[in-house]
């Protein structure tokens, strides 16, 4: 079954969408969309590093994403506005990555594949790494759900209840780096934030509780992944952007539907 490239692509996209859309709820609740963006843009630097050192791209991307995410955490405590720090790091890392890739000797690499994803070329090995990452993220989310929620609501309230908000922030950062790493093959560095934010945003109207919002977001994310692959086969369009297009369409439906229900 895994011999079929389409099956592999579908499994990779579904796994990534599942982890990204649930984690994306926290990105939305904490207003961290730009933080996700900065982390994702750093992925290109990770690609360059991985190619230079001849290690797995996913490992390189995960490593650099984590470093950049931790850097943002440290720097945003200081006197610069967080949005400024994010602007510096997001575009700095992207530009540095693009330059580093160009400087790599020899191998001509297909940059587009890393910017916009290339899920149809996912190998069995990639699939194993992607699902390992997805399962770790899902397990962390399951295990830390309430603590993460409380730390999201109010750090002091969390501290008083015996939950260390710093630790939860760190776990969130780790998960974000993990999702960026597994998503690079699927939607690419420039569209990862879409996979985080759009399903959660679309799920908001249909939700009266955090768990329900996560479940609806997951459903929307997986639907977008499968629908996007189908769309790209049908129209012969790039898969990553097609997935995001379907997600946006679902978001638009949810918004219009919500407005319709409200006015009815």
């Amino acid at each position: 079954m895994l011999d079929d490239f389409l099956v592999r692509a579908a499994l990779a996209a579904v796994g990534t969408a599942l982890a990204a859309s649930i984690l994306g709820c926290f990105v939305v609740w904490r207003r961290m969309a730009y933080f996700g963006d900065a982390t994702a843009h750093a992925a290109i630097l990770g690609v360059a590093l991985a190619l230079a050192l001849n290690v797995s791209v996913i490992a390189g991307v995960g490593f650099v994403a984590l470093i950049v995410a931790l850097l943002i955490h440290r720097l945003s405590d200081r006197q610069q506005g967080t949005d400024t720090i994010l602007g510096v790091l997001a575009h700095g890392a992207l530009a540095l990555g693009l330059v580093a890739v160009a400087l790599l000797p020899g191998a001509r690499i297909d940059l587009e594949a890393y910017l916009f994803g290339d899920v149809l070329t996912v190998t069995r090995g990639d699939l194993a790494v992607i699902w390992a990452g997805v399962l770790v993220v899902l397990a962390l989310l399951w295990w830390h759900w309430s603590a993460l929620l409380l730390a999201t609501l109010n750090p002091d309230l969390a501290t008083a209840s015996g939950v260390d908000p710093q630790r939860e922030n760190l776990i969130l950062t780790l998960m974000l780096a993990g999702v960026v790493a597994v998503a690079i093959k699927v939607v690419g560095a420039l569209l990862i934030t879409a996979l985080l934010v759009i399903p959660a945003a679309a799920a908001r109207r249909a939700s009266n509780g955090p768990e329900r919002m996560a479940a609806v977001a997951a459903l929307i994310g997986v639907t977008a992944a499968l629908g996007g692959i189908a769309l790209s086969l049908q129209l012969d369009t790039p898969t990553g952007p097609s997935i995001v297009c379907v997600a946006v369409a679902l978001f638009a439906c949810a918004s219009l539907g919500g407005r319709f229900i409200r006015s009815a």
Partner: protein
Amino acid sequence: MTLLSAENLRVSYGTTAILQDVSLSIAAGEIVTIVGPNGSGKSTLLRSLIGALRPDSGRILREAGLRIGYVPQKLSIDATLPLTARRFLDLPRRVSRAQAETALTRTGVAHVANRQMADLSGGQFQRVLLARAILNAPQLLILDEATQGLDQPGAAQFYRLIEDVRADLGCAVLMVSHELHVVMSASDRVICLNGHICCEGTPEVVSAAPAYRELFGTGTGGALALYRHDHDHHHHHHHHGTTD
């Protein structure tokens, strides 16, 4: 019996010392109020006591296994996060339906259990926060300006509720406020803070103390007596706070 005590706390942000040489202790069952002008370090002190801030020097001692219920100054729930009052009580640990109902009933907001937190009025919201804080039958309830945003009758009601809760649970209460008149009438002991402890004692002692009058002006002495007898009047008082 002392539940919580602090010895010679010093807390600073950068080079500015917010708290210096602050020592206090809370005994079981008493209501202690910390008053002080804006910027006097009230919230900093509470945050140190709950462990959210690490003091530069000094010690904080807690009775072993002390159960603390905490009501923060302000809890802004992002509009993107759907959360009912009932679900809020489940953070971080799930509680039984009966426990949740008991707590919400005790604070008078059982009817809003299934409403979204974002849709609650200021008074209802604070009562839900209080309900969550008393779920684990705390020995010490800590409230940071819990009546911010409530009008004066609303605030007076809230403080009476706290007195009731104290009577029910037998817990000690440590609260911070700048609403001197309302708060002080409900306190066993008042600590007047302005970076350091200016004076402390019963409400009568503190309101007569020169250090207190220097901070808040003399007009509050009469207001205190007034409010001790009548909580429900609408008065517009101005604090003559001279900040440092």
